[in-house]
């Protein structure tokens, strides 16, 4: 199911939550809505689910306008941040709910429902726990129940709101892989909301980055990371040193640092430099800095330095390139690549 969002606006009181959002979700893809809190990502998810109606714009499911269709009619599976399991029902009853509430004519037989429930519990690796109540399950198990319940109605779209937000780090990692496996097994178009860039980049086919109710960039994880479309994306996805400076005569200058700036308009600009785009340079090449701290991560050395003007710069390069650098000593650094963005005044 392709989902098309056209020029959607949504405000809460005076506060604009979504501002002219346009997005195309491809059939069968796993898309992440990534953004800081308050960026509108959950609101967008709820607009797609029909739990909020936009003030303007359109939501299309496979070319059909569902902007103001009731949530119950959309055939979406929604997994809530806090799971929203029915506390008074067993796991099996929870999973069966979407089928149980169908009108008699569309409702599968009891045996069929039971078979479907068993199949789904197997899919999320909870076979045999159908008789438990949600309160008797761990957080990760509850999340799996919520997933199975959302999938029971064979949704056209699966929507997940911060699916791993309430879980500890280990469970989170294994459930991430789990979600990917389930997505690949069912092939259902899936959109999930997260504020964790690592999660988005690892799990999603494509990532849509939201900021202040607007989409900054949509693209494959690699693309978003390597070619950020805006200063916000560059700062939010992956690590970066930020330098404030000026572009003159095709070069960006900030103190002792200079990088070529082809095609960037002259004037105030900021440079975002990934720590791993800074390498050890030969003497006389690049710029010098004082080492504050060296942290080793296996084969990688993270070198925290400070320029003579006081600007901190973090570099991250292969351990063998350290060349005997020590805390308090001087190193020569070279910038391989910088992302430059003009500073917008106002």
């Amino acid at each position, binding site marked *: 199911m392709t989902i098309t969002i056209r020029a959607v606006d949504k405000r809460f009181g005076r506060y604009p939550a979504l501002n002219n959002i346009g997005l195309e979700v491809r059939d069968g893809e796993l898309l992440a809505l990534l953004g800081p809190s308050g960026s509108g990502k959950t609101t967008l998810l709820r607009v797609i689910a029909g739990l909020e109606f936009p003030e303007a714009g359109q939501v299309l499911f496979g070319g059909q306008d569902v902007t103001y269709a009731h949530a119950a009619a959309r055939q979406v599976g929604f997994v809530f941040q806090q799971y929203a399991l*029915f506390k008074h029902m067993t796991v099996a009853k929870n999973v069966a709910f979407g089928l149980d*509430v169908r009108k008699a004519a569309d409702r599968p037989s009891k045996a069929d429902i039971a078979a479907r429930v068993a199949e789904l519990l197997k899919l999320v690796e909870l076979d045999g726990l159908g008789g438990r109540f949600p309160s008797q399950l761990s957080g990760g198990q509850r999340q799996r129940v919520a997933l199975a319940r959302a999938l029971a109605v064979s949704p056209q779209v699966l929507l997940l709101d911060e699916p791993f937000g309430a879980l500890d780090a280990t469970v989170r990692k294994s459930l991430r892989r789990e979600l990917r496996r389930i997505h690949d097994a069912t092939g259902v178009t899936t959109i999930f909301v997260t504020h964790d860039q690592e999660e988005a980049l690892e799990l999603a086919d494509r990532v849509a980055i939201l900021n202040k109710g607007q989409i900054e960039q949509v693209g494959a994880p690699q693309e978003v990371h390597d070619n950020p479309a805006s200063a916000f994306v560059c700062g939010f996805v992956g690590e970066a040193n930020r330098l404030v400076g000026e572009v003159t005569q095709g070069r960006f200058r900030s103190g002792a640092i200079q990088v070529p700036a082809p095609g960037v308009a002259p004037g105030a600009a900021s440079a975002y430099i990934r720590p791993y785009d800074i390498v050890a340079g030969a003497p006389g090449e690049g710029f010098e800095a004082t080492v504050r701290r060296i942290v080793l991560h296996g084969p990688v050395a993270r070198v925290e330095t400070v320029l003579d003007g006081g600007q901190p710069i973090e570099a991250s390069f292969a351990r063998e390139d350290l060349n005997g650098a020590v805390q308090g000593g001087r190193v020569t650094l070279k910038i391989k690549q910088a992302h430059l963005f003009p500073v917008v005044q106002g």
Partner: protein
Amino acid sequence: MSPMFISADKPRPAPEYTAARPAARPNEDPAWVKALVLSAVVGFLVLVLILPLACVFAEALKQGTGPALEAIKDPDAISAIKLTLLVAAITVPFNALFGLCASWAVAKHQFPGKAFLITLIDLPFSVSPVVAGLIYVLVFGAQGWFGPWLIEHGIKIVFALPGIVLATMFVTFPFVARELIPLMQEQGVDEEEAATSMGASGLVTFLRVTAPNIRWGLLYGVLLCNARAMGEFGAVSVVSGHIRGLTDTMPLHVEILYNEYNYVGAFAVAALLCLLAIVTLVLKTALEVGQSVHGRHV
């Protein structure tokens, strides 16, 4: 100097932990404080609650069970008991329904004037019941706003059953709503939204998701509402007109008998009222026990 060398030359003696343990837990108060606070609470309860309650039963049975039963079997007393039960039977279901609607509206929906509505629901708690009774007399009484019209059409509200029911409703309508609003607010709307997204209609969502989540709170509110409906004196006293055998409820009947120096009769009826209250409390406690047993699943 490294700290590990400090003790190297002369090992320090291990600290002695021989002092008596002051309390089971570090933040627990000493035993005498607990005893003092507890005895103050118990003493107070005995003085203002248990003693008077015991007194009611003692006075009622002062001359044996015979006269007490006689007083209850009196036609006027029977009529008062019937009226009280009838008023409760009308009021409680109505207020349960009202409380459900009000709490559902307040807890699950956003609308302008919500805070004002909550304040309105609390009004009967802050208004004296006597004032509540007077309001109905002023509105529906012979000299009231609608009085002449009502007389013309032969409808009797004040000094009759409808007035008593109205006054009781006024006094008791916050009980169910007040019990349910915080409960429903705490539960939020996630489960309802989940049900909706799975295709459940509004009614199905209410019956299968909302109602099971609030059933204990609802029962609890109904019991409290019932206890108050049977025991209400002030508001009912103003609108009832005290017509013996006709518009006297049990609390009013107790007062009449007492004013007539019929102490055994007054205390016998009062004892019956107390028994009804105690049954309510026992039910309530049973509910709470049941709830904590099933609590894991609720």
